């Protein structure tokens, strides 16, 4: 694993910025005035204790939740809230904490489904599955095979994902997100429930995605070792508020973070 770059000027322009975002469900405040940005090409970690609002933050970014106040700037477009379809169109892909795969479909079909936005052949050709429609299928299959090679899941191409072990399902889900060729990839606990070896594999994939495809990544993770090693910058949430933001080293030394998240040290 590489050393995190502490030099902020090396980072690209701002890809996504959330400003003063507040979200509440009835009386429960999930997020209170949270602001941070994600720059092009970086790996940005969002950490915090359970219930800190990390997943809510991702849900706001890709449009599942509409915040009550605040602004979201993505690729220079300012809006009050995102919509899932607009987010997908704009190039935001996402994986889930508790897997959201299409369980009845094969690995191949799951990843191919990730290319839904890139396939356009009309209904008529689909009826015939011939000519342009078949051409398009083959063309996208080729791209999907690249992803399958990259994630080393060639052996399970035609297996229904519902029957795969958890670690592989996580990988297929990453594959589906990659099939969208996203500009921003949101990973919600990509390593939850994995053993050390699987975590190392997944870390390697995340770094490779970031470096080979130049994809910007925002990830939520509880494994501090992984977070500190992988990410360029870390934002720390607690009770829906941002309590720290900076490089892993800065965050590690922050008094509030130590108190809120890593536990009191006496």
């Amino acid at each position, binding site marked *: 694993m590489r050393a995190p770059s502490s030099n902020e000027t090396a980072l690209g322009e701002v890809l996504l910025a959330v400003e003063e975002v507040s979200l509440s469900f009835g009386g429960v405040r999930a997020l209170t005035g949270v602001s941070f940005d994600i720059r092009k090409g970086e790996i940005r970690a969002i950490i915090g204790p359970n219930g800190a609002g990390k997943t809510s933050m991702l849900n706001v970014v*890709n449009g*599942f939740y509409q915040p009550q106040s605040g602004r979201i700037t993505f690729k220079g477009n300012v809006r009050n809230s995102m919509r*899932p*379809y607009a*987010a*997908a*169109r704009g190039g935001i*892909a*996402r994986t*889930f904490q508790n897997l*959201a*795969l*299409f*369980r*009845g*479909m094969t690995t191949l*079909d799951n990843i*191919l*489904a*990730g290319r*839904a*936005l890139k*396939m356009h*052949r009309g*209904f008529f050709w*689909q*009826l*015939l*599955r*011939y000519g342009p*429609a*078949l051409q*398009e*299928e*083959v063309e996208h*299959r*080729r791209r999907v*095979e690249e992803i399958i090679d990259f994630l080393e899941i060639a052996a399970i191409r035609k297996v229904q994902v519902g029957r795969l072990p958890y670690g592989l399902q996580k990988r297929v889900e990453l594959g*589906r997100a990659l099939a*969208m060729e996203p500009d921003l990839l949101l990973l919600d606990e990509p390593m939850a429930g994995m053993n050390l070896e699987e975590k190392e594999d997944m870390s390697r994939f995340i770094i490779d995605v970031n470096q080979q495809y130049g994809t910007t990544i925002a990830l939520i993770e509880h494994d501090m070792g992984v977070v500190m090693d992988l990410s360029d910058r870390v934002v720390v949430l607690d009770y829906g508020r941002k309590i720290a933001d900076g490089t892993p080293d800065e965050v590690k030394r922050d008094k509030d973070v130590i108190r809120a998240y890593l536990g009191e040290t006496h």
Partner: protein
Amino acid sequence: MLYREVGQYKSNYAADMAVFPILQDRIGIAVILVIAYVVFPLIGNDFLLNTILIPFLIFSLAAIGLNLLTGYTGLLSLGTGAFMGVGAYACLKLTTIFPHVNILIWILASGFFSSAIGVLFGLPSLRIKGFYLAVATLAAQFFLEWCFIRIPWLYNYSVSGAIEVPLRTFMGIPMTGPTATSLTRYLAVLTIVVAMTWVASNIVHGRIGRMWMSVRDMDLAAELIGIRLFRTKLLAFAVSSFYCGVAGAMMVFLWYGGAEAEVFAIDQSFLILFMVIIGGLGTLIGSFFGSALIYILPIALRLIPANFGIPIRPAAAEQLTFVIVGALIIVFLVVEPNGLARLWQIGKQKLRVWPFPY
């Protein structure tokens, strides 16, 4: 032993993505088509064609229609019977208004009317799912049934209140009406069912099929990869209702030769739903299996006592058939909740590795 894919290498993605990538499957399909097109017409008597094969094919098509909606897209519908009815009544009106157009064209075109109605009643599917959607489609069932009975224009003001199928010819051969032979009707039904099954298979294996299944398996994730749920669901309603509509039109024009509104009652909806569930949700072949089990099995059972000379009154035999079929359905569902298509798949897998267990 014969069913092996060993040595059948695929050198391009198109071949690997074919609907039947295994040679033996392609041979099997060819054999079935030859039997259906050559053997049955040669040996088939009126009973075989008219009582078994024509209805079996029509029910299969209706089951495919419902399967596209319920099995592939995960939208439960109880309005199948009514959507079939829309097809039948649309076909009657079309052929009444334009009697000189080929009836087969009208049978297919009536699907579009059914499609439109299906989309209309599919509109609530954006907001509601599962049982609640089933109740919404139930409303469609009752409303449409009411229309079939209360709007005399739909059945051409006939005294009986039933559809009376007029005589229509195609190149001088009677296609519909009392003088049409069961052979011509069988061939017409067979051709339509084969063609539409082929199209359905194309749809579900491609982009649209994947979109439907994505919505079925995890609609949130589907939305996130850029699938517009509403459009996708409505498309499923449209295509599904088209199939049901054509099946309904064929049922009246190429099988019954006349029908009352009660043919399209809720019983019909349930019957098709059972076929889909027992055959296997989300499989096309399951639709045929389900239709065979629910429709052909009772007929076969009813014939057994007579053929073996068992002294049993017809009424008793009828009752016994219900009991046996009901028991069989329960057995099948307990043994394989995923339907006959899954059993078929397991069987194929076993054959593939035979004589080894795995």
